């Protein structure tokens, strides 16, 4: 039932509404709203009950194992939420003077320093509000760099076929054309394809390493040498940083510019689809172009660095300084981990992924790159299973939901047929991984004996399979009173 269907005309919550004030309604009628406002008229209890019940129709990290590949659904520590929700932090106005926010700015400054340390970059700006905006900032800086050098014929961004869709979409938003390059049989960038694509038109290469195929590109130093040799820049998509946190710095691999997803690696909550935060880091030569504002320090006082101090900056990406509350949560998480804890994240994420990979392969599931070591995630392909049983990646995903597990990422990367991208993260216990293996073992056997059970899954959720074709054909995006 929708909240609107609980509504009764005239029902109000006086405790939450400001009192009427005399003389308020003095605006001319021409400025006033004419049509009725369709908001629910429900009691506080009705609203609380409705949204509590809705919450119970979700899978979440707090309730379910959530091995969604390339999304790093790890535990979100409560301390981070508690600290970020301290009343003074919540009440602080974004335009309040720096003098009234030294505590807040100290946290952000230190977070910038921590991110510089883990990435090996020379400067960090925290302002991008999600990974895709970080990508935009990164590619815009590449463009600004080439333009500042008078090297404006560079019109093309190279992107491996396995990349996230945000990479090509971002390159186009930054005014570039996209050229896809191939990945070799082992999942590494195909060097011949790269060499063929490189030229005076190359602005740069966008790369995720480890890639979305769940493997570490072993030839990364050669890739960097080739791209730099052609005058291009190397962009690091930090979606998979969890796999190498504290073990390898993107700066050491030769990357010139990176973005991080703090809602992945630094454990800020995913919130049902955001907010995230996508800080960017740059090498020395891209420092002048960092997006503003970011935090500077001088004689123990913190201040905003703005376009006045950075005239070559690509500019601003948000009305204020980005997703401050997300950044505070990431800062608390980073301090809880500390120097020793950072590499432990990568170690146990990789341990969990390799353990799960090994056990699923033992059941008969096919790895897309079985000869390779898994990173923090791995890719299965169900092509053979589909050919023999008609069971698809979707069928497996839906059955997992019935068994109490969120499904892995399905049908991504697009180049691998019937694939499941599985990322357990370091915060899952071996018992939970084993329970997932048991569920997959059951699926494997049912696929061969009673495939209809999988085709009809899920059965135990609030709804059965949803008619997505109808949703797109008979668009119903807004409720109307019958």
């Amino acid at each position: 039932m929708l909240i609107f269907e609980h509504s009764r005309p005239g029902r109000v919550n006086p405790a939450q509404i400001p009192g009427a004030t005399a003389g308020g309604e003095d605006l001319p009628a021409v400025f006033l709203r004419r049509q009725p406002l369709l908001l629910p008229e429900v009691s506080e209890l009705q609203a609380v009950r409705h949204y509590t019940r809705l919450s119970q129709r979700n899978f979440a990290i707090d309730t379910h194992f959530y091995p969604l590949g390339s999304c790093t659904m790890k535990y979100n520590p409560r301390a981070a939420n508690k600290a970020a929700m301290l009343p003074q932090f919540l009440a602080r106005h974004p335009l309040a003077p720096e003098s009234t926010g030294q505590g807040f700015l100290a946290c952000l400054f230190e977070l910038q320093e921590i991110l510089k340390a883990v990435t090996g970059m020379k400067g960090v700006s925290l302002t991008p509000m999600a990974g895709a905006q970080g990508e935009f900032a990164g590619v815009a800086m590449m463009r600004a760099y080439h333009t500042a050098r008078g090297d404006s014929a560079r019109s093309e961004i190279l992107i491996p076929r396995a990349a996230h869709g945000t990479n090509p979409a971002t390159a186009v938003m930054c005014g570039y054309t996209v050229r896809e390059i191939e990945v070799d049989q082992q999942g590494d960038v195909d060097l011949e394809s790269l060499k063929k694509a490189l030229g005076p038109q190359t602005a740069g290469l966008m790369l995720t390493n480890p890639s979305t195929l769940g493997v570490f590109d072993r030839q990364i130093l050669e890739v960097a040498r080739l791209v730099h040799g052609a005058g291009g820049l190397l962009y690091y998509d930090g979606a998979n940083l969890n796999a190498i946190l504290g073990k390898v710095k993107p700066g050491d691999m030769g990357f010139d510019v990176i973005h991080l997803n703090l809602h992945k690696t630094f454990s800020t909550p995913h919130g049902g689809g955001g907010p995230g935060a996508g800080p960017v880091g740059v090498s020395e030569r891209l420092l002048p172009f960092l997006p503003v504002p970011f935090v500077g320090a001088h004689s123990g006082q913190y201040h905003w660095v703005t376009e006045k101090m950075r005239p070559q900056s690509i500019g601003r990406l948000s009305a204020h300084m980005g997703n401050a509350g997300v950044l505070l949560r990431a800062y608390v998480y980073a301090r809880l981990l500390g120097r020793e804890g950072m590499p432990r994240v990568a170690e146990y994420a990789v341990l969990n992924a390799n353990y799960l990979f090994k056990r699923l392969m033992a059941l008969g599931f096919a790895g897309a790159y079985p000869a390779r070591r898994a990173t923090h995630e791995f890719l299965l392909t169900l092509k053979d299973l589909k050919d023999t049983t008609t069971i698809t990646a979707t069928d497996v995903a839906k059955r997992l939901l019935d068994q109490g597990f969120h499904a892995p990422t399905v049908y991504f990367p697009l180049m691998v047929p019937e694939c499941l991208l599985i990322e357990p993260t370091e915060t899952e216990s071996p018992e939970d991984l084993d329970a997932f293996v048991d569920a997959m073992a059951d699926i494997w056997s049912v696929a061969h004996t009673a495939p209809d059970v999988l085709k009809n899954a899920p059965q135990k959720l609030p709804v059965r399979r949803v008619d997505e074709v109808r949703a797109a054909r008979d668009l119903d995006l807004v409720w109307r009173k019958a």
Partner: protein
Amino acid sequence: MPFIPHTQADVERMLATIGVDSIETLFGEIPAELRCAPLAGVPEALNEQDILRLMRERADQDGRFLSFLGAGAYEHHIPAAVWELTTRGEFYTAYTPYQPEASQGTLQLLYEFQTMIASLTGMEVANASLYDGASALAEAILMAVRLHGRSRRIVLPESVHPVYRQVANTIVRAQSIELDVVPVGADGVVDVRHVAARMAGAAALIVPMPNFFGRLEAAAELTAAASDAGALSIGLVNPVACAWLSPPGEWGPGCDIAVGEGQPLGVPLSSGGPYFGFLACRRAHVRQMPGRIVGRTVDLDGREAFTLTLQAREQHIRRSKATSNICTNQGLLVTAATIHMALLGPAGLRQVAVTSHANTARLVARLTQIPGVRNAFPGAPVFHEAVLRLDVPVADTLRALEAQGILGGYALGEHYPQLADALLVCATETKTDADIELFATHLERIVSKRRLDPPCAYKD
């Protein structure tokens, strides 16, 4: 190790299953020269007690102020239930609802949100959020250029939030889109005739309502001017104002796109984020919309069900041909906003708007009794902000107020040289008569002292 559950016995068993002798072996494919030393730049770990102590100290250091700042971020009362519910783990720790059967809670909530935003703005459809108001304006500009198809020039009044204009420029300039800025008049709004003269051959017009100065533009006439020239119109609105003031769908021939900052709907100020942007439009234009959209449909048994829809617009399907690169958006803030709007209802949200307007009127009336403080646009209608001119230096005055625990408003001089002596003030429903009186008393003392005793007068 923080948040890692493994015992030593677990590790040994898992390594044996994998068939390697150490965790380090699992990193064997990474070239040895790339392996880094311990991270000197990261401090030693703190436990929960110590980090919470540190964070409380820093929060205490920042303190709390009596604030009359607005300028795009507004202090409103947020019902206690809003964030109690929003931070439930089932909302807080879920992700984008890619698996609809396991995400009906988030999906239904987003559908309810789209319905509320569509009604609030008077538009036919809405999406499930963008990052913030400024980036939503940039996305609306890109959408309008796609819809128009022939022009890449956008007419942008100077009365639009100056940082929004900067953000729009950052985001759209690489696509050769021109932002044609129309100067604001001496009365704090743009002249409809000036705008109309610029509309020929333009793709779209931005109509801010209220504008950055709190003033009410001639929205219907501006929208009509855009329509007459074959251009689209983009209403940039405060969602709380829409509960009382005429929304974009009602302006003249009706706006094509409505966008804005969602923060006033239940989101704390939080130094600037996370907030959320909203975008609503005509149904005919829905396929050019950026961002996630939720649709209502049925499941196999014909039961009501919700799912992400029109995903063929999006980056994960369409890649370089997507309507935007946006992926993660602001789901949790939308959760808060939806619950906020449900608790306030139509009458409650309207009352927030009316009371904020009334409090600002009282604030202006009281402050302009002070000799040396004038209303920059006397008699002109505003929503809940106003521009005051001071005959003493604005920055010094703000500093003196800050020393008294008061944030007295936003200095307009940085972005508007013609208003170098002016302050943008705001009083929402959170301000009492006593708050206003306290502000007035301090301001009066500061202004009269400066008038009698200018600090550097002899240097003139």
